């Protein structure tokens, strides 16, 4: 067994410091194993969220060496390799959300956003018929594990704090899921534009780069939604039609 050093943020409500730990390493360990080892051998009180330890639940998000990722899917061998020799591995809580303690943050805003999206509204009859091709368009968005790493990384939220005006990439993925669901009958374009502020996204693709589920958030969710908003509200022919007739042209 070799030893590894790492620094973990310890403290409450944003106040605290980086504390260094030395942990014995076994083959194949992931970063979450190290946190557990610290809990079980050194610091029972150390706070972290986790559930499945298999990359399926999205609970153990943290910023490792400054990059947000899942602790359970981050192999120590990779982290040791990426960390320069004169530096120590660092683990911090997600910066975008209010801090609770150690590696745990208050992610409840994301749940408020989830509730604000109107649910699927399809036909009453059962045994819906649609093709696998149609299913797959919505399914990509449904692989989201709600780790909120995209939200943590998006600068509109992280730097500009636009929590009141912008739903963030996770919300756009949810909206795209319903908007592209083969049976959904709800008109979602007004809320995509106004309530969830898709205009704030300037398609830097940071969210896509960090998504552990590999969802192509920018290209497959956000850009098509932006196009639908543009079609509805900014189409010059329709603007002329509205000016002349005073009526909307629905497509």
């Amino acid at each position, binding site marked *: 067994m070799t030893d590894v050093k790492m620094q973990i943020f310890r403290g409450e409500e944003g106040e605290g410091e980086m504390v260094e730990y030395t942990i014995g390493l076994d083959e*194949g360990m992931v970063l979450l194993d190290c946190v557990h080892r610290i*809990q*079980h*051998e050194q610091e*029972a009180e150390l706070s972290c969220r986790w*559930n499945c330890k*298999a990359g*399926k639940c999205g609970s153990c998000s943290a910023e490792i060496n400054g990059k947000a990722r899942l602790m359970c899917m981050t192999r120590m061998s990779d982290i040791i390799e990426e960390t320069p020799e004169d530096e120590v591995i660092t683990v911090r809580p997600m910066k975008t959300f209010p801090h*609770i303690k150690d590696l745990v943050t208050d992610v409840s805003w994301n749940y408020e956003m989830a509730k604000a999206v109107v649910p699927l509204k399809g036909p009453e009859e059962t045994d*819906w018929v649609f093709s696998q091709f149609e299913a797959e368009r919505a399914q990509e968005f449904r692989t989201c594990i709600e780790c909120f790493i995209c939200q943590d990384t998006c600068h509109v939220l992280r730097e500009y704090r636009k929590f009141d005006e912008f739903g963030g990439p996770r919300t756009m993925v949810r909206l795209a899921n319903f908007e592209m669901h083969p049976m959904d009958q709800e008109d979602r374009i007004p809320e995509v534009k106004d309530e969830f502020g898709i205009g704030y996204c300037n398609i830097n693709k940071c969210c896509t780069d960090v998504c552990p589920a590999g969802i192509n958030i920018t290209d497959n969710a956000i850009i098509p939604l932006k196009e639908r908003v543009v079609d509805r509200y900014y189409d010059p022919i329709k603007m002329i039609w509205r000016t002349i007739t005073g009526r909307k042209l629905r497509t």
Partner: protein
Amino acid sequence: MTFESHEYDVIVVGAGGAGLRAAIEASRQGAKTAIICKSLLGKAHTVMAEGGAAAALGNADDRDGWKVHFKDTMKGGKYLNNWRMAQIHAQESADRIRELEQWGAVFDRTPKGLINQRNFGGHTYPRLAHVGDSTGLEIIRTLQEKGIHSGVDIFMEYTVSHLLQNDDGTCTGCVAYNRVDGAMHAFSSKSVILATGGITRCWSVCSGSWEYTGDGHALALNAGAELIDMEFVQFHPTGMVWPPSVRGILVTEGVRGEGGVLKNSEGVRFMFDNVPDMFKGDHAESEEESNEWVRQVVAGEIATVRRPPELLTRDVVAKAINKEVAEGRGSTHGGAYLDIASQRSPEEIISKLPSMHHQFKELAGVDITKEPMEVGPTAHYVMGGVRVDAETQESTVAGLFAAGEVASGLHGANRLGGNSLSDLIVFGKRAGEFAAKRATEVEQPQLDNADIDAAIAANLAPLAREGGENPGKVYDELRDMMQEKVGIIRKEAELESALEDLKEFATRVGKTNPGSSMIYNSGWHQVMDLTNMVEISTACALAALTRTESRGGHTREDHPEPDNGMWSHTTNVIRKIDGDIVINQEELIQPPAELEELLDRVKKED
């Protein structure tokens, strides 16, 4: 002591598939409903389910129907199932699946555009509605989104520590603590539904999430409810075995459903030689027949030949792998080889089993489109749990209901893959419905402050301790002990020794020191988990010691054969009397003649 009070018609403990479905139903019936859950919403263990939900929709093979599903479930359970639960489950699961679709679930489709169904062990026909290999995620997200729009209050990251009861034992509510700030809460409720899942964190090699510490089992036991079938623990045959830190993580049965084969170190497909008498003649007897079945299924044809023996029930496959390893024919790291690369194209593997591909690539550095996986048994599911009424899911304690893995009866001695997700939605709905009905019939309970104070004092006690062991150390050692002595193959001396060890563990848990912080203190929570784990491990070891035969998810090295006598129609019942866990046996109720006819029991007595 200070606490916050709440009043509800129905409290649901747990927010996995069963809990969410129960809450949706209770609320739909007009009950004021709350969910109290240990983690954030959408993170419960249901999210890890992979292969699919079994329902006789008949979309992929129209020969299927509820009667065949009933027969398969009873046979897989070695006929120790509660027959009525098996019947209700087979009859209602199709409607519950269709309902999920209307709430937003997007299942994979057949060529005709209907919900597709996949083959799984023990199911006669392709029966599992699925989404690739992440069906659990689909189901929990669908129910979660329905739930938050159903008027249900949700207390996330709250843990229920105690149930409250009045003088005649009726359940009147519960005490919970909020992990985020350590505050205590008392809930008065006309009905309480336990939907806390299972117990498999009691074993060091397991596929369960951190929540699986037997909380609901222990709450029920301490409230005087009966637990049944606690000896039956499903060791899923295919967990990851290497590297050590991922040992136990699940490899879906869907790999075999999609044609994956099991081989030993000599390259032999050993399942052909491991068919128990009760399944003789049900499976392919040559590689040619087996390959033809895979060809037909891949081509979307109705299978006309028998399925590969890799699709035998989980108990059978797990024991076969165990035997290969014990006899020196294991893989490099002590498992068996599960090979899909030689059976299907890389494109098909990535499309049908995306999360398996990702999991092995990221965690083990193995590309499953090119190399075989190494797999071995992992503690996966407990068939045993709270004894419930088949129709209403009410336990033997008035006002206390249970649904999903924490309840028992549907699966008998062994659960078929895919029957768990459908169990959650069928019996979750029923629990919600009948808990809400009860709420219209009884008064809002008045809680006794002395009981609440006692519960809170017990919760706070660990924080005041000076010195003492780290609870994490006790946790690790308890799990290692259960793995060694109450594992997949059991024997009398080890089970007796486990029961002795558990007494010592109980003492140690009472002296652990988690530190003094009340804010998101993981160690403090672990002390509470440990208390439940010791109780439930004791129930499991005691039941395993008592049953002197091998059947389904219970294998005794010293009694290796099924007993055709008493144990073939006897249930172990566990309850707590004056603080002691006691066990007795009861005669199993047999199905009525019209259902008995559906079973092929001729081969039962092997």
